[in-house]
């Protein structure tokens, strides 16, 4: 079973205190700690477990700059056999469709049975998996939280609103976007990363992938980010100030006044 997992290097919300930059169009990225997108990490773990059981190889791919190699190595330390770095200045400021276009060309260079993405990444758009499936004309299941191999098909579970569980049969090859909680990702220590430090990771540029420069990057983007800000406090919002005790007292008083507490 050949599995390709698409991963992304994102600012780690656990190890950072996110602040807006002075221009107000993005978060302050100096001094940020990056790591692999949490959803992607679950996808890689799932792929490794499937390969452990059914044979095959796991390949991880990322679209990003040179520094993105770090997340490929971390996932390879987990057990992914191959890594592919897709990097080109022309990819900068790609929108979701642009990223999906790049990944499509990577998928077509290989022969994969399953392509996995995380359900979403730092931007929270959750768009690449679906677009990629559509472009490849492959069956797609989103928010997958369970995978059973059933011959040349898969039974995949999806989390449905309200915690209900749905099971679907899906034909191979297919694209799956993976939800957190599908497994318990293994720990990757410094030792593991050092072990794969010297493994060669091929890097592909736009021309290697035969991508037209106007289909990706800023040129190809039909969705552009124009602003980034913390919403103004609405009239209805009131920030309570003081010590924890004082805040609690004020809150109880307000709830009582508004009839929320008897």
């Amino acid at each position: 079973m050949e599995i390709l997992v698409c991963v992304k290097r994102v600012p780690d919300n656990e190890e950072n205190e996110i602040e807006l930059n002075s221009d107000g169009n993005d978060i302050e990225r100096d001094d940020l700690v990056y790591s692999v997108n949490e959803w992607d990490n679950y996808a890689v773990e799932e792929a490794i477990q499937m390969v452990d059981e059914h044979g095959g190889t796991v390949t991880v791919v990322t679209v990003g700059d040179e520094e993105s190699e770090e997340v490929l190595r971390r996932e390879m330390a987990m057990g992914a056999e191959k890594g592919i770095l897709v990097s080109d200045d022309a990819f900068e400021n790609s929108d979701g469709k642009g990223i999906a276009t790049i990944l499509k060309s990577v998928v077509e260079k290989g022969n994969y049975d399953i392509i996995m993405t995380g359900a979403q990444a730092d931007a929270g758009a959750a768009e690449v998996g679906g677009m990629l499936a559509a472009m490849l004309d492959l069956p797609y299941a989103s928010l997958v939280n369970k995978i059973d191999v059933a011959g040349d098909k898969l039974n995949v579970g999806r989390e449905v609103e309200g915690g209900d569980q749905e099971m679907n049969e899906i034909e191979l090859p297919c694209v799956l976007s993976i939800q957190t909680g599908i497994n318990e990702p293994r720990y990757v220590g410094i030792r593991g990363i050092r072990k794969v430090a010297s493994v060669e990771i091929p890097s592909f540029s736009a021309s290697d992938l035969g991508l037209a420069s106007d289909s990706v990057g800023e040129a190809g983007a039909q969705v552009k980010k124009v602003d980034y800000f913390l919403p103004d406090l609405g009239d209805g919002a009131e920030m309570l100030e003081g010590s924890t005790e004082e805040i609690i007292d004020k809150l109880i008083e307000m709830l009582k006044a508004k009839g929320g507490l008897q």
Partner: protein
Amino acid sequence: MSHALIPPAQYSFLGLPTIVISFIITLAGTATFVFLIYKRLVPLFGAAPDNTRLERIPERIVNTLKIWLAQYRQPRYMFAGILHIAIFFGFLILLIRTASLVVIGFWADFGIPGFTSGPYVIIKDYAATIVLIACVIAAVRRGIFTPERYKVPEKYGHDHTKEAVFVLAVISTLMLSESLFEAALIAAEMQKGGHVTYAAPLTLVWIFANLLSETSISALQGTHVISYIVHDICFFFFACFLPFGKHFHVFTSIFNVVFMRLDKGNIKPVQYGISDSQLDELESFGVKKLEDFTWKHMLDFYTCADCGRCSDHCPADAVGRPLSPRFITIKGRDAIFKNYPIFGPKPESALLMEGTYEEDEIWSCTTCGACEQECPLGIEYIDKIVDLRRGMVDEGMVPQTLQKPLKALEKRGNPWGKMEKKRLEWADKEFVKTCEVKSLEKGEEAETLYFVDSISSFDERMQEIARSTSLILDAANVDFGVLGKLERDSGSEVKRFGEEMLFQDLKETNSEAIKESGIKNIVTADPHAYNVLKNDYKDLPPIEHITQVVDRKIREGKLQLNPLEEKDKVYTYHDPCYLGRHNCIYDAPRNAMDAIPGLTRVDMQKCRDRSFCCGGGGLMLFYEPEEETRMGVLRVEMAKKAGADVIVTACPFCLVNMEDAIKVAGMEGSMEAIDFSELIARQLKS
């Protein structure tokens, strides 16, 4: 020499000379014993190396005299201890007699010079009598009353009482047969007149000789020879039975104590003989299979006497976590027995985490060291737990709750993932107006480094400890500074949770920053940092815990403390594991507290080297164990029982756990927890 009865060496049963029987028993017994010992040694030779156990011989001799020969740790459990001491010394005394008896089977007049008459004979007769009495009491205690700590929970296999009582019966038979052998001869001598061997009053020999005084010579002859053969068979049976279970300690304990750990506080290297810089070359880390344990750790498995003292003091066991140190050892021994059978081919050694130990079991340990402190045989636990964790970390088997703090430690140098530049936020503008805190990162110079460590730097409540410690140092005129953003987590729990390479990184970063800063000595208020810097880091300037500094400065008259304002409260001191057991600092904090005029201090029943862990520090704060109650809750209840209103501890992690426990136990208002540094800072004379 003439004998009142025919000695076994010259006697015949229906034409079969007894000497032949003795010969067969001795030969078969010795051969079986040698074969069994050989089989038991095989795994030790295939185990991981440890070349440190023959170093520092003088210390080892002292240890052996104290812990093995003088049975120093036995009376910690008074009743069981006295019984054991009786049997132990009885065995030692009777060893000479037993060895002689084996030879007497072939050579009737054999005797080791000096041990055939006089005081030895009297002493050994009393010894046999005392051993028999001790065995009977022990059997009743074990078989009928069965103290709680001997019980075997179902998941850990079968109860060991039958084996224990059986062995006591074998020992009793040895004592009885040896005495009967001798008594029959004395009874015959009494009947025949002439020389009668002296039997000391009230010994078994004396009792039997008197009971047999009317018995016919032929019956005495039978008793004499039969009890000899019974003794001979029992002796060799006992020797060959030992290597099959917990009584192997009769044989191995002396070796286990000779080779026992001499240092406290530190953790064994990943592999002995491999330096820190060679770690990258190792194929595998930690213990994954049985053979990854060192030979000494395997000897530990053989040596466990199943006395249950470790688990009786284990805080994890007390709160119902799935860990009982006693069964770490017993399961290890069972694994050796299974993987190295006496007969038949050796099966492939399975992974220990698949069948022998459970993941949660190994993560449940707080490394408090209570088990090792208690073990009368010098069995080690912490190193084994850490080695098993190293193996799990290497395989990626780390609970999700621990992965996040570990990753944060890797990226940010603290388990909360806080920004490095915020390490010094506790010394805010208001505070530095009252107390100068030099920042060594900015090129300032100081004599002493105050190593704050992560929790006191970042946790809002524990920052109070950092400020109190600074105030104390300032009041004592110590020229001190801090590393600020150059400081990383000391890595104490990173190491103890098995992430050795991350620990190496933290250690290198800290060591370099400390050396660059040019300080002459180090002070910390965090016992975990104190311990790891002192015992696991290398070549650092001397380090003291704040309790030691305060104690010293008070004695030197450089620190004066105001009398307590509220005199009606009773204080108790909770010994942090890494200050007490791991570093033997028990008196400094108590002396300093007692130097506060008007302070009433009581000790809890479990104090000093029997202190009860608060729940563990560092990464243990993030781990979510299965447990019925919290260690801290049990601890604050102990404080209440001791009549205390205030628990003083000297460790930020203890304080976290105690404060939480007071809330969980619903004791807010009636119980209070503060840190030693806070108490002292409050009483400083300005």
